[in-house]
């Protein structure tokens, strides 16, 4: 078991390294210069001053050093927990910006992933082998998974937000409020949270329902189901077993889907102007803010890796097959 996790952790570290390196490299290899753009946006009238400022910022961000040096510096400060200062939002430290955004992103992601997973699996299990449910839930599920996240978000924002006016279509909380532990604030927070959550939830829901439905059919046809039925076990028990066993592959499915859901969350945040990581990333890209981009990306990678790791552990815990195999006692 230790070996197994040792291996997993190695892959994670490798992934982390690769991801962070890619993310470090790509922006720097591409045309454009973040400092120049920053200055361009400031519309300075004096070109001499602009040049002086340019040098000044270049030095400050360490962009005057050779690339390998920058790369090294990057890792050194990263290991010290220092993500640098945002160029776009100078002089705010990247960590602050991310910490400000992460709660919102997590607040969207966690509930939508978890709830959609449970509800989706539940629906899928019900749909399996029930003709009319299969014919209603399934197509709906397919339509939902095929829906681009942002389009569903747009539809919801437009229909429930703008036309019906039931929910705000943008922002994270009311403009007139300050974050505080008051009911008004929390109510406003929830109100703004609902539509983005709903759109993420719905898209993910379909996928789980379909996955579950397919898995459980296999389980219901399996030998042990047949045996139970031959011994007159009630449908309930058979389904319970099948459900549990079909859940297990869905856990790994969750790991595979995580990246997609995160991506969906980014898009949804953009549609709803929700102040999560998606918005930060978009800004960072548009402003070529290396440091913010690195930071936000790092955060996502770490998040996805941790989530994956948790899923791995959970999987080992809940599936005796894997556990037994891992102890080498296959036969």
């Amino acid at each position, binding site marked *: 078991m230790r070996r197994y996790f040792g291996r997993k952790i190695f892959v994670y570290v490798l992934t982390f390294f690769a991801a962070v390196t890619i993310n470090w490299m790509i922006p720097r290899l*591409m*045309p*454009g*210069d973040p400092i*120049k*753009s*920053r*200055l*361009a946006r*400031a*519309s*300075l*009238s*004096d*070109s*001499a*001053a*602009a*040049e*002086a*400022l*340019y*040098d*000044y910022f270049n030095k*400050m961000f360490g962009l005057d050093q050779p690339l390998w040096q920058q790369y090294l510096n990057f890792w050194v400060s990263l290991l010290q927990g220092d993500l640098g200062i*945002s160029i*776009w*939002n*100078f*002089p*705010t430290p990247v960590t602050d910006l991310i910490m*400000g*955004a992460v709660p919102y992103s997590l607040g969207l992601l966690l509930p939508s992933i978890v709830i959609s997973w449970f509800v989706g699996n539940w629906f899928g299990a019900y749909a399996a082998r029930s003709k009319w449910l299969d014919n209603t839930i399934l197509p709906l599920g397919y339509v939902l998974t095929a829906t681009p996240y942002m389009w569903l978000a747009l539809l919801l924002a437009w229909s429930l*937000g703008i036309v019906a*006016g*039931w*929910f*705000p*279509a*943008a*922002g*994270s909380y*009311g*403009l*007139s*409020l*300050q*974050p*505080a532990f008051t009911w*008004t604030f929390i*109510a*406003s927070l929830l*109100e703004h949270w609902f539509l983005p959550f709903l759109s993420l939830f719905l898209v993910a829901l379909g996928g789980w329902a379909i996955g579950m439905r397919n898995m459980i059919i296999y389980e219901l046809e399996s030998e042990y189901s047949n045996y139970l039925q031959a011994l007159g076990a009630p449908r309930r028990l058979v389904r319970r077993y099948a459900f549990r066993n079909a859940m297990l592959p869905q856990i790994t499915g969750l790991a595979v889907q995580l990246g997609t859901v995160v991506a969906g969350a980014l898009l949804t945040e953009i549609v709803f*102007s929700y*102040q999560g990581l998606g*918005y930060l990333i978009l*800004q960072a890209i*548009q*402003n*070529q803010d290396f440091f913010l981009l690195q930071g936000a990306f790092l955060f996502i990678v770490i998040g996805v890796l941790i989530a994956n790791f948790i899923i791995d552990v959970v999987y080992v815990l809940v599936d005796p097959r894997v556990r037994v195999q891992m102890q080498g006692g296959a036969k």
Partner: protein
Amino acid sequence: GDTEGDGGAAGDYPRAETLYTGGTQWGPPSTWNPLDTGGHATGTVGLVYETLFLYEPQSREYIPWLAESGEWVDDTTYELKLRQGVTWSDGEDFTADDVVFTVEVGKYEASTYHNLWEWLESAEAVDDHTVRFTFSQANYAQWANWLYSNAIVPEHLWSERSEEEILTGANEDPVGTGAYLYETHDQDRQVWKKNEDWWAIEALGHEVAPTYIVDVVNTSNEAALSQVLQGNIDMNNNFLPGIAQLVQGGYQVQTYYPEEPYMIPANTAWLVPNTTKAPMDDPEFRKALSASIDMDEIVNNVYGGLVTEADPTGLLPVWEEYIDTGVVEEYATPRDPKVAKDLLKEAGYEDTDDDGFVETPDGDPIDLSLIVPSGWTDWMEAARVISESAAEVGIKVTADFPEFNALVDQRNSGEFDLVINNERQISNTPWTYYDYMFRLPIQEQQGTTNFGRYENEEIWELVGELDSIPVEDTEKIREVAGKIQRIHLEELPIIPLWYNGLWSQTNTSVWTNWPSSETDNNYLPSTWRGYFQLGGILMLTELEPAPEEE
């Protein structure tokens, strides 16, 4: 839940006393340093830190503000009398030392007004309320511009700071002289609170109406549009699509003009050809290109009438008096495809290989790329129109949409063919425009001016001359400007396209008496950086709460 609740009484800021603005801040407020001209939170200059004068472009009036008056005592000496009884928000008096300190910050190389010290020799406090400036050369226009553009910072707090902190520090907890005080900020907003002890209440009888100003961070124009429509944002200063429909749609949304062009022209969008590259180095070609452009299409179809075609000189309407109409009549190239074709033909540009596009007189094919930042949808459409109309006269122009950063790179290093740009805003003098158009010498990187790399010593000298004319001497200014205009129109190194509006859409559900051509509140309705001192602050004093409904 209902959305109205957001702006309603439930909030921490009483809706009726709060002004919601938006459209200037594109990221979370991160610095309140007035010397960081590009980055500071909206309102830092104007609401908190103030300038010595205001300049009201509509009436072309310099309004004494922190200064009571100022005058040239001789050709190279300027004496400034400061207003008495002005205090910083920490209670300290505002004095000549503050002004001297602020001006001397320019000695730092990375200061935005470092070049001031190329012709300023010294700034000294004569007494607590008098400052004398001695110049090596009197650049009247620039100096007048400086006086109303730059905010004064308190010497007693800033003098201990390091150069780095002064120039780029975040200056949390800003202490200014202005009408508002820092209240709080968050990822998506900046909140200012009214300064009850503002000097102007007593001195000038000005009182700003809103108790709170909440400037909302712009995430996207669409989001802003929603907020304006719902009355959650009272004033937005962004290009919002489809506003024409909304103004007429009974949404309580107002613009400065009730009909086309709806907005006050605020800057000129230019088509900048790279004059170091063939065939853009040929004035005749440039003129032909200019003539080919179907401006009607851009104005009416792309912008839906939200903008107007620029004057052939490119000067903004506020500088109307400096336009030499005679010169324009004589030298301007009309926008007419036929004219374009003729020009091309005369200059020897002909379609020799029958591909539908002309070649250079040497027979080289022409294939120009017009770059516009990706995502700037209105400009992208405009670029497409230009490309199409150029094709009509046989010039091959392809619209390309690189990322903004890549575009800046190409633009600054002179690697582009054609680019659209509108960097200079309304000001007190056309000099700022001509400086932008013709500045010499050309550097390897052209960061802020003369992107077309047009080298013409004669015209640059004329621009210098313009600078050294006292700002009141309109006659003289017009004369020199006329000379410049003639060369400009003859050579057309930079092609004016349209006037970009001072985008401003206001909602009248909470605040009324917004600036409008219909009323006598004619101040510029904007929170853009640099516009509070162009009258934006006075607009706030004119606002009135909307009468209670229901």
